[in-house]
């Protein structure tokens, strides 16, 4: 392709000159309507065919071209009385304020004016030679100048006292309490000289101020505001057309009244109406004007609304575009799908295509593919000249005959093709990863649940997007950079984010517990899931240790020492000799089993280990029938006794603290008043019961309690969750200032509490559990906390989301270059050495930093 490139030096925006507007808008519109009774566009109406056509087949009456090639032509409305351009009222105000109403000169003495001119010239010169601004005097900016003008009481030249100018939104100007008409304003603006305007920063060659008062209104071509034919055959017009009809109607009425010599007051009313219509035509969200509405009550989308905001032309259509070769559907789980695979519904796979580049060496294969008539078949053939032809039964034979190297065939997506899988919001790089396609029945994308964490996905109806990279370069980049197996560890802190979770951990935990033995049948079944066809040595009873089964999943020869579930975790020569697998085994925190496997055996072995162990854990959980019911939350007798003992102990401790406080015997904490000290000590006591109750729970609940087992392994739920269900809720409603203390009139939360009562129950401590049920007062305290956290959550997500967006946009093209410096896209140096130490958290797994 021949391309001519030329750097744009500058762009200058101006205001449209009415003469130019008349040249541009060649068709004068006179009829405030669209179609006549026959459904034919009215000549001189808003859909006049001289402004272009939108129906295919019709010819434009100006250029004679069809809808596709006619660029559209502007029309114009001659306003019988001028109106202000509402988006420029600030400029008009500034000019009116800065000029004398009598001699129309700037309200500045010659001396001051020359000073500003000099300053302006200096800046201009400096910009021209691209130099630093040397000695432009401070306080020479336009803001300072306008301030000086504002303070002028009278005109320096003719001595006229400045009138009192008032601007009232949206478009009204008063001078000495007289409401100026637009044409009077225009007369004032016309008389300001080019020289004076230059000082105000206005280039009057491209923007004379009187052009801001409109006497002719340009009507955009019909292809800017196409009408739509509804299914019922009814025509529906664009919002802009509606607005223009309104303007024309008022314009016509005003004209008739003028010709009929109507009283001034009626003329003025209509004139103001025309002004308001003009204002809403430009911006229908102008403050202090009720928005123009559709018959249904919906506000019209006028010019500014088309451009503005998230759904505006800029952010929606220009910054954000739709893409081809992509698909979107609901996601669901499949533990049998590999970490770097994605299950693609056949329906989608047959629509998406991958290019097949025909060469002399693969032309036979290409012919064979081209001859296929069902699923993995060729959809399009792209000839050497770039012409794309759909392959249909009629032309298949011909295409096969004409096939030659250099052509490109688009074949349907098939197993093993590289795709990009994405879930929004794409907050970090692992929100988009490459997966190998696996064509399946069904209508959802299938994925392994170990990769839900990076996408932050779940299966309650989430949808995800799939893209097919087309060029070979894109495919290989995706394959070698974006595969999940290279993304197991988070660049944030080096922890694994693609790991086992939920059942994948529960199962591993249960399997590897010290006292867990499997029968031969069980062992064989579990190992067959893993694809291992050997058995470890049995114990004397002919049973198999769970740890030995797990060991078979480990890479041969692995040596590892770490901690897991608060106990040592040791693997020697690929055999688990001590410890139990839990959440932190899989690379959370300091335990780096996954990091070690990745480092010693490579990413493929690592991926295989995560995949297989998750699958095995699932199978084991299914085999054992792990389920949670009311039984998990029924307190044992022992635990109920412990609960009563703990609570009464705590309450009496607190009573004693209060007693001491009353008798002034309480020893205050350093830096706190006696009262604060009491509060802190009470809170400390309450925190202590909470922790002790948790300890009791772990101590007295056996491994039969699956809920506790899940909490122990870290797979789901915490000890606190179970504690709240079986023992007591603990302190509720901790607002930012500590325990809740007011809400009712006098220093108390609820009317049944004595004012000033600081005992646990009076300040939101709930001693009952979800299982036993909550008293109304307790429920209230609980609801206070729930409401608080709900409100906080809503505010925080909106806040932090926008904060993050701004941050990532600001940093988006910073990258670490080969010399470890950080630079942006313009080669601006940001940091000489990345992070000051070249340390990337991703690669600092086992190295200690000194």
């Amino acid at each position, binding site marked *: 392709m021949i391309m001519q490139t030329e750097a744009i030096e500058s762009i200058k925006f101006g205001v449209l000159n009415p003469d130019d507007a008349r040249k541009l808008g060649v068709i004068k519109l006179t009829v405030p309507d669209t179609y006549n009774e026959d459904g034919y566009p009215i000549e001189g109406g808003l859909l006049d065919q001289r402004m272009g056509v939108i129906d295919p087949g019709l010819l434009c009456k100006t250029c004679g071209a069809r809808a596709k090639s006619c660029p559209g032509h502007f029309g114009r409305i001659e306003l019988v009385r001028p109106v202000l351009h509402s988006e420029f009222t600030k400029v008009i105000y500034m000019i009116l304020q800065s000029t004398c109403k009598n001699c129309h000169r700037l309200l500045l003495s010659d001396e001051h004016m020359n000073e500003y001119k000099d300053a302006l010239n200096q800046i201009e010169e400096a910009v021209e030679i691209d130099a*630093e*601004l*040397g000695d432009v005097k401070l306080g020479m900016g336009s803001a300072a100048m306008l301030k000086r003008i504002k303070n002028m009481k009278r005109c320096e030249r003719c001595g006229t006292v400045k009138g009192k100018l008032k601007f009232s939104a949206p478009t009204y100007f008063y001078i000495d309490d007289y409401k100026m008409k637009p044409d009077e304003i225009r007369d004032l603006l016309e008389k300001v000289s080019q020289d004076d305007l230059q000082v105000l920063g206005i280039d009057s060659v491209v923007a004379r101020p009187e052009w801001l008062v409109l006497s002719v209104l340009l009507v955009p071509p019909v292809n800017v505001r196409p009408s739509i034919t509804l299914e019922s055959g009814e025509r529906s017009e664009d919002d802009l057309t509606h607005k223009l009809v309104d303007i024309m109607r008022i314009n016509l009425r005003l004209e008739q009244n003028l010709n009929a010599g109507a009283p001034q007051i009626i003329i003025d009313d209509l004139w103001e109406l025309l002004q308001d219509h003009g204002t809403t035509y430009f911006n229908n969200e102008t403050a202090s004007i009720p928005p123009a509405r559709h018959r249904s009550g919906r506000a019209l989308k006028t010019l500014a609304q088309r451009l503005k905001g998230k759904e505006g032309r800029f952010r929606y259509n220009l910054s954000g575009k739709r893409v081809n070769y992509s698909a979107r559907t609901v996601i669901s789980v499949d533990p049998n799908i590999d970490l770097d695979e994605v299950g693609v519904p056949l329906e989608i796979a047959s629509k998406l295509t991958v290019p097949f580049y025909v060469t002399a060496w693969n032309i036979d294969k290409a012919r064979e593919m081209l001859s296929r008539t069902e699923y993995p078949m060729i959809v399009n053939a792209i000839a050497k000249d770039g012409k794309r032809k759909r392959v249909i039964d009629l032309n298949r034979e011909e295409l096969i005959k004409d096939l030659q190297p250099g052509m490109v065939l688009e074949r349907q997506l098939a197993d093993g093709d590289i795709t990009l899988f994405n879930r929004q919001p794409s907050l970090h790089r692992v929100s988009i990863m490459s997966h190998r396609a696996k064509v399946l029945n069904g209508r959802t994308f299938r994925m392994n649940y170990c990769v839900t964490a990076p996408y932050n996905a779940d299966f309650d109806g989430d949808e995800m997007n799939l893209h097919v990279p087309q060029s070979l370069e894109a495919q290989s980049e995706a394959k070698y950079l974006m595969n999940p197996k290279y993304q197991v560890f988070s660049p944030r802190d080096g922890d694994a984010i693609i790991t086992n979770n939920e059942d994948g951990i529960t199962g591993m935990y249960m399997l590897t517990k010290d006292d867990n033995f499997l029968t031969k049948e069980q062992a064989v079944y579990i190992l067959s899931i893993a694809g291992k066809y050997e058995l470890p040595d049995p114990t004397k009873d002919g049973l198999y240790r769970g740890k030995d089964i797990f060991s078979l999943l480990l890479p041969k020869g692995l040596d590892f020492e770490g901690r897991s579930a608060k106990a040592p975790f040791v693997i020697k020569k690929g055999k688990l000799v001590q410890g139990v697998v839990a959440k932190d085994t899989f690379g959370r925190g300091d335990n780096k089993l996954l990091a070690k496997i990745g480092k010693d055996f490579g990413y493929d072995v690592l991926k295989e280990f995560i995949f297989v162990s998750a699958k095995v854990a699932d199978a084991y959980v299914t085999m054992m029938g792990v389920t949670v019911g009311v039984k998990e939350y029924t307190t044992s007798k022992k635990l109920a006794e412990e609960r009563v003992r703990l609570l009464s102990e705590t309450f009496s401790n607190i009573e004693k603290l209060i007693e001491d406080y009353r008798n002034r015997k309480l020893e205050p904490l350093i830096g706190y008043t006696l009262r604060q000290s009491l509060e802190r000590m009470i809170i400390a006591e309450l925190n202590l019961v909470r922790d002790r109750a948790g300890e009791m729970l772990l101590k007295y609940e056996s491994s039969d309690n699956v809920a506790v087992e899940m909490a122990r392994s870290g797979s789901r739920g915490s000890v606190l969750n179970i504690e709240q269900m079986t023992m007591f809720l603990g302190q509720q409603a901790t607002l930012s200032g500590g325990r809740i203390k007011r809400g009712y009139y006098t220093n108390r939360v609820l009317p049944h509490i004595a004012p000033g009562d600081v005992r646990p129950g009076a300040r939101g401590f709930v001693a009952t559990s979800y299982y036993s049920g909550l008293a109304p007062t307790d429920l209230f305290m609980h609801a206070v906390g729930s409401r608080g956290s709900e409100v906080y959550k809503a505010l925080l997500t909106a806040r932090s989301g926008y904060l993050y967006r701004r941050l990532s946009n600001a940093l988006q093209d910073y990258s670490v270059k080969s*010399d470890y*410096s950080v*630079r942006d896209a*313009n*080669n*601006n*140096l*940001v940091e*000489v*050495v990345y992070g*000051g*130490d070249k340390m990337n958290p991703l690669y600092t797994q086992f190295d200690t*930093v*000194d």
Partner: protein
Amino acid sequence: MPSKSDHELVPVHELMSDKEAKEVLESLKVSIENLPKILESDPQAKKLEAKPGQIIRIHRREGKHDMFYYRVVIGE
């Protein structure tokens, strides 16, 4: 009176000679306008009487390593 710029938390600023500056720009492979900037009116720049276009080297300590940072002096 002790100046704020004598405080131990203010890293050492050093004005570079033109020759040094040229070498640094070459070694970093940047042109002077791509360097981070420091105002001529910055207290440290003032103290060094640096002029626009000159480069200031800042000795900062990152962990246990001494690091150099570079700033080109600009006018207002």
